[in-house]
């Protein structure tokens, strides 16, 4: 029984099978990301009323908040798939982890820059040591650490396992880091800074925000599939299925 399930998992997690399947999935994710994203942008830019305090500048949150959510989500995906790769030695999981890192890092970067662009009119300066921005910066460093370790180790297998372990250690640390940064922030700044995600948010603002978050997520799924396909091609470059595929092109 257990053996049968194992065989089944191995079959469906083989890079070759994944490569064939993913080709069919990507368009769905990409198209729905595009539709939902455009609709979300339309609602966010045209329909949502201006904020009574921040005027029009608050419209940055339709990018900033989903990007911040995604940067954390992608890190979780990365750590979980790295864990699967290490424990059960499923190569596809390692590939997903490696493919996620650059996307997650760009979300973290986007959240950082939009956060400071939003902050300039609000705080009068581009950078304030706000808890959210500081945590985001640290998260970006965690991504950089992962990618640096991944590229520093020659042997692919060791590189995957080593950087995967780092991602897991990072996940254990993220709540602690987050908590200490929040705590540190309340000490030094008090609660004067208006938070983005206050629960009293107007429904016309909340809907575009959630739509944008969904669009980002679908975009991530599409892109992680594309990148994982690349990883599969590259890592299996000496195997028959890749050779046949390439000669057939």
């Amino acid at each position, binding site marked *: 029984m257990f053996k049968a399930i194992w065989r089944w998992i191995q079959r469906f997690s083989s890079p070759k099978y994944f490569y064939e399947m993913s080709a069919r999935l990507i368009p769905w994710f990409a198209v729905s990301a595009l539709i939902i994203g455009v609709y979300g942008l339309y609602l966010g830019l045209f329909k949502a009323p201006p904020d009574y305090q921040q005027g029009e500048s608050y419209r940055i949150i339709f990018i900033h908040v989903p990007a911040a959510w995604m940067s954390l989500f992608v890190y979780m995906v990365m750590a979980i798939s790295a864990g699967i790769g290490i424990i059960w030695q499923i190569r596809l999981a390692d590939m997903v982890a490696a493919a996620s890192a650059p996307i997650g890092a760009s979300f973290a970067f986007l959240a950082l820059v939009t956060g400071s662009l939003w902050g300039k009119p609000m705080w009068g300066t581009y950078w304030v040591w706000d808890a959210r921005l500081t945590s985001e910066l640290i998260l970006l460093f965690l991504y950089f650490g992962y990618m640096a370790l991944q590229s520093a180790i020659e042997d692919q297998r*060791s590189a995957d396992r080593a950087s995967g372990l780092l991602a897991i250690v990072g996940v254990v640390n993220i709540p602690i880091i987050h908590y200490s940064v929040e705590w540190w922030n309340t000490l030094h700044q008090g609660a004067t800074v208006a938070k983005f995600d206050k629960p009293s948010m107007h429904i016309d603002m909340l809907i575009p925000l959630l739509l944008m978050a969904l669009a980002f997520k679908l975009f991530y799924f599409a892109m992680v599939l594309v990148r994982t396909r690349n990883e599969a091609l590259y890592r299996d470059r000496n195997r028959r299925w890749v050779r046949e595929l390439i000669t057939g092109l």
Partner: protein
Amino acid sequence: MLKAYYYLLMRDLRLAFRSRHELANPLIFFVLVVTLFPLAVSPTTEALRTMAPGVIWVSALLAVLLSLDRLFKQDFEDGSLDQLMLSPNPLVVLVLAKVTAHWFLTGLPLVLIAPLLGLFMALPDESVEVLVYSLLLGTPVLSLIGAIGVSLTVAVNRGGVLLSLIVLPLYIPVLIFGANAVDVAMDGLPVRGQLFFLAAVLALALSLAPLATAVALRITASR
């Protein structure tokens, strides 16, 4: 198992005392860096007190970071690390022995010299005591987390910058709470919360970091 722990700890301590000139390096670095700040910023008591907790803690962090290499580098280069991994004793225990030795050789000296630096930085007496406690709880965490980082990078050529990129973000909670405890103590406020947090982080690191280090070492050995 306890014997293996004890013998490995003793071996590392003996090795360190055989090359005494290296022994003092992190300590000298620590004092030197702290000394730079009054020169660069301002030697008035007020300015010193404002920056003292942060300066001392950041310097301690960097001193530990620089010394992390000696945790596994030499053993890796001469092959002893392989023998440790082939020991019938659990690798976690051996890792713990090595980390303990590292703490005795870097963390503990930093804790002991800290009162002197408190004096340099014009810290009031009560906060010097808190500084010692916070370092006492915090430096073992630095060694424990650092061990994970070194074991991942020990096989990488020129892994020094990589090590700091990996390890420093993970040090942030300890830095925040350690420095804040000293800061708060200067105002005569209670610091139990901060010290409890550091103790909790230490307990967590003590239970998880050796495991992660053992896994990381096996990954590194599987070249």
